[in-house]
């Protein structure tokens, strides 16, 4: 048994893609080119029942654009009524005052909006959608107006790694309490546009060194990174719940047809939540087991950080080499 399954009988979070459809076509999107049959509402509600039965406390809708699914509010209201903590990530396009109120009424605990640059034209160009910056920002305002907690997500890439301070200020100005500076994942479109968008390992190191210092001295805003490779930095003090990537350990991902993958960036199906026994997947899936007990390969063998870092982001290693155990391509060591 691994450290994870010794204690946990299910993940803490399911990241749930109800649909890969989206009203945008962003350059870094991991899912834009994905297609997958979608389930009818009745099956989605059945999935909620499974999650409740398995005592999964958090569900985060992502995508695709969650607001595209006409039954999002119904599903969210059902899930929150059954005690789940529901949140979502949106591009903000459809998030006007009325929608914000509806999300609040449906029991959402928080809503995250993706903003990639503090400059409207850069964000719009990146998202291939004129006007999207303004609508994302007014989405944040709409959430604030109705008193629904907002978060902001920015995927760090060449277009913003030197101007994330301004992104933090933008968040402050619009009542955001938490900013996620996501690491760039090389899958889907992000993989195709990798050369243009991704930083080099040394640039990642420089970025994280500085951003970590900023995080440690910032008190009015919660700044979060979800990149295991930063645990090799000397300034890193955070106590994380698990070592290395959290996917497959603390979280799993649901595809629109109910298939389970370790995370949205690892396209390996480990079972289907409607058709397979959940405990069998959770405890016995060879893929999940492999992700939970990685073995140091290449430059990771002998690396003093391996205990904490576990070879970094498993999704990135897998996307570039097809092997979970290879070192994260972002690693600067």
């Amino acid at each position, binding site marked *: 048994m691994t450290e994870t399954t*010794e*204690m*946990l*009988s299910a993940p*803490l979070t399911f990241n749930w893609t109800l649909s890969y459809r989206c009203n945008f076509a962003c350059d870094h999107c991991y899912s834009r080119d994905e297609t997958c049959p979608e389930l009818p509402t009745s099956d989605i509600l059945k999935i909620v029942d499974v999650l409740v039965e398995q*005592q999964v*406390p*958090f569900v985060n809708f992502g995508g695709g654009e969650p607001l595209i699914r006409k039954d999002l509010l119904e599903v969210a209201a059902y899930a929150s009524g059954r005690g789940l*903590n529901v949140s979502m990530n949106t591009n903000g396009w459809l998030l006007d005052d009325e929608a914000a109120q509806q999300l609040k009424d449906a029991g959402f605990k928080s809503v995250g909006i993706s903003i990639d640059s503090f400059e409207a034209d850069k964000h719009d160009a990146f998202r291939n959608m004129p006007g999207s910056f303004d609508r994302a920002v007014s989405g944040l305002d709409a959430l604030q107006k109705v008193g629904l907690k907002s978060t902001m997500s920015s995927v760090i890439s060449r277009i913003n790694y030197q101007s994330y301070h301004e992104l933090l200020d933008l968040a402050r100005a619009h009542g955001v309490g938490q900013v996620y500076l996501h690491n760039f994942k090389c899958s889907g479109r992000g993989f195709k546009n990798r050369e243009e968008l991704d930083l080099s390992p040394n640039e990642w190191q420089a970025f994280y060194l500085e951003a970590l210092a900023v995080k440690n001295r910032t008190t009015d805003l919660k700044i*979060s990174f979800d990149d295991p490779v930063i645990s090799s930095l000397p300034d890193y003090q955070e*106590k994380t*719940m698990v070592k290395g990537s959290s996917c497959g350990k603390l979280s799993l991902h649901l595809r629109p047809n109910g298939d389970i993958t370790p995370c949205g960036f690892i396209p390996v199906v480990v079972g289907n939540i409607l058709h397979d026994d959940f405990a069998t997947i959770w405890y016995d899936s060879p893929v999940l087991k492999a992700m939970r007990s990685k073995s140091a390969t290449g430059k990771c063998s002998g690396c003093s950080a391996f205990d904490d870092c576990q070879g970094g982001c498993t999704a990135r290693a897998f996307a570039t080499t097809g092997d979970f155990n290879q070192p994260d391509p972002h690693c600067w060591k």
Partner: protein
Amino acid sequence: MNKPQRNPEIVWRVEKRRQAEVLKALEAGEDADNRGTVILIQSGMMHQLNLVGGMIWERCDGQRTLVEIADEMATEFAVERSELEADVHEFVTDLIKRGWLIND
């Protein structure tokens, strides 16, 4: 300290499979004081409670007094009643200090 209540901000669950293992270990005479059976998540951090702590925690619903909690625990453990009450008191006091339990 009347009827302690769990802080509603805290997300928690009983890890049933783990709980069953710990009970088995206890029956076999092993020491399981340091083995968690309930997880609590607060501001992104996960904490664990051991079997006794978890059982007290489950009962801190704002409806039961400390004496009532100790009464219920007494049916599960062959421990001196006064000792049990002292344990419950100590545990609840500690968790109130941490802000995990609220004392109305």
